[in-house]
C-alpha cells in the first residue's frame, strides 16, 4: 500500500479523481471549476489606487472570488501535505527514457524531483534560460489564460466536459503553443 502511494499515482487513478472536482464544484456552489480566474482576483485585490487599475480589475473581488481564492489556498495546502505526508515523487526518474534522452541532449543533467534543479532554483534564477522559463513562462501563462478565458482546468477539463466548442479551440491552441516552444524555442533557449 505504502509503495503504491509513494510511486507516481497512475493516470487511471489520478484522472478520474481530478474529474470528480467538476461535479463537486457544480453541486457545492453551482460554479464551474477553474483556477486561473484567481489570478484576476489577486490583481483586483492588489492594494493600489483605484485609478491605476484597468477597468477589467475594478470589481468586488471579495464577493465574487473569496471562495475561489480559498480553493487555491487549499491547492497549496495539498502540495504541502504531499511533501510532509507522502513525499515528493521523482518525476525525472519516472518519465520515459526517450524524454530523458531528449532533455539530456538539451543540457539538462538533474533528473531528481519534480523539476530540473539546473533551471528551477533560486541559484539559477538570474541565468537567461531560467528567466525565460520562469518569468517569461509565468507571464504568458497569466496573460494567455485570461485572454483565452480559462486555463487547463477551465477549458480542457470544465469546458470540454460541458462540450463547449470554444474550449476545444482553446485547448488546440494550448497544444499549438506547447509544440512551438518544445520543438522551436526550447532548443534555442537551452543551447
Amino acid at each position: 500500500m505504502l509503495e503504491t502511494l509513494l510511486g507516481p499515482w497512475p493516470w487511471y487513478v489520478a484522472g478520474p479523481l481530478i474529474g470528480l472536482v467538476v461535479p463537486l464544484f457544480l453541486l457545492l456552489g453551482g460554479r464551474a471549476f477553474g483556477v486561473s480566474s484567481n489570478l484576476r482576483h489577486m490583481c483586483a485585490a492588489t492594494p493600489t489606487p483605484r485609478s491605476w487599475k484597468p477597468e477589467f480589475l475594478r470589481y468586488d473581488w471579495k464577493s465574487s472570488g473569496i471562495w475561489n481564492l480559498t480553493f487555491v489556498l487549499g491547492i497549496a495546502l495539498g502540495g504541502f501535505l504531499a511533501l510532509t505526508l507522502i513525499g515528493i515523487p521523482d518525476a525525472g526518474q519516472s518519465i520515459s527514457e526517450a524524454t530523458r534522452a531528449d532533455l539530456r541532449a538539451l543540457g539538462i543533467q538533474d533528473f531528481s524531483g519534480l523539476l530540473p534543479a539546473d533551471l528551477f532554483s533560486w541559484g539559477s534564477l538570474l541565468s537567461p534560460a531560467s528567466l525565460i522559463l520562469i518569468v517569461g513562462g509565468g507571464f504568458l501563462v497569466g496573460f494567455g489564460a485570461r485572454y483565452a478565458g480559462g486555463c487547463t482546468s477551465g477549458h480542457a477539463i470544465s469546458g470540454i466536459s460541458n462540450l463547449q466548442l470554444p474550449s476545444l479551440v482553446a485547448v488546440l491552441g494550448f497544444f499549438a503553443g506547447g509544440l512551438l516552444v518544445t520543438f522551436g524555442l526550447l532548443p534555442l533557449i537551452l543551447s
Partner: protein
Amino acid sequence: MTTATQEAQTQPQGEARTVPANRPLFLLAYLLIGAYLGLIFVQSEVVSWFRIQEMFRFQSFHMYGIIGSAVLVGAVSVQIIKRLNPRTLTGERVQLSPKEWGDSRIPAARYWIGGTLFGMGWALLGACPGPIFALLGSGITVMVVALLAALAGTWAYAALRPYLPH
C-alpha cells in the same frame, strides 16, 4: 410584500450581494477540495516540468490519460447534473454559462490566440495556474517568481484588453 421590503431595508447593501459560496462552512469545503486536488496534482506528477515535456513530445500516455479520464468523468457528471437539474448546497441552480464565441472579425480570436500564448507559457514553465500553487506548497519556493510573473501577465492583459481582438 411588506416583509420583503422590510427585509431588503434591514439587509446592508453589500450583504445582499454576497455569494452564498463565501459562507464559512463552504469556504472550508473549498479549502478541502483544493487540498485534495493539490495532493493528487503532486502525487500524479502533473505538476512536473518533466511530465509536461514528456506530454508535448508525445513520449508517454500518462498526461493524456489523466486529462482524458478527468474529462470523461467530468462530462458524464455534467450530463447527469443537466438531466436532474438539482439545487446546489447553496440553494441555487447550477450555472453552466456557455463560453461566447466573441464578436471579433477574426473568428474565435481570443480562444486560439490566447490559447496559443497560454500553451507557450505552459511548456516553458512546465506548470499551469493550479500546479503553480501546488508546487509552492510542496516547497518549490522559486515558483513565487512564476506566480508574480503570471499576475503581471494577467495585469498586462487587463490593460491591453480594449485593444485586443476577442
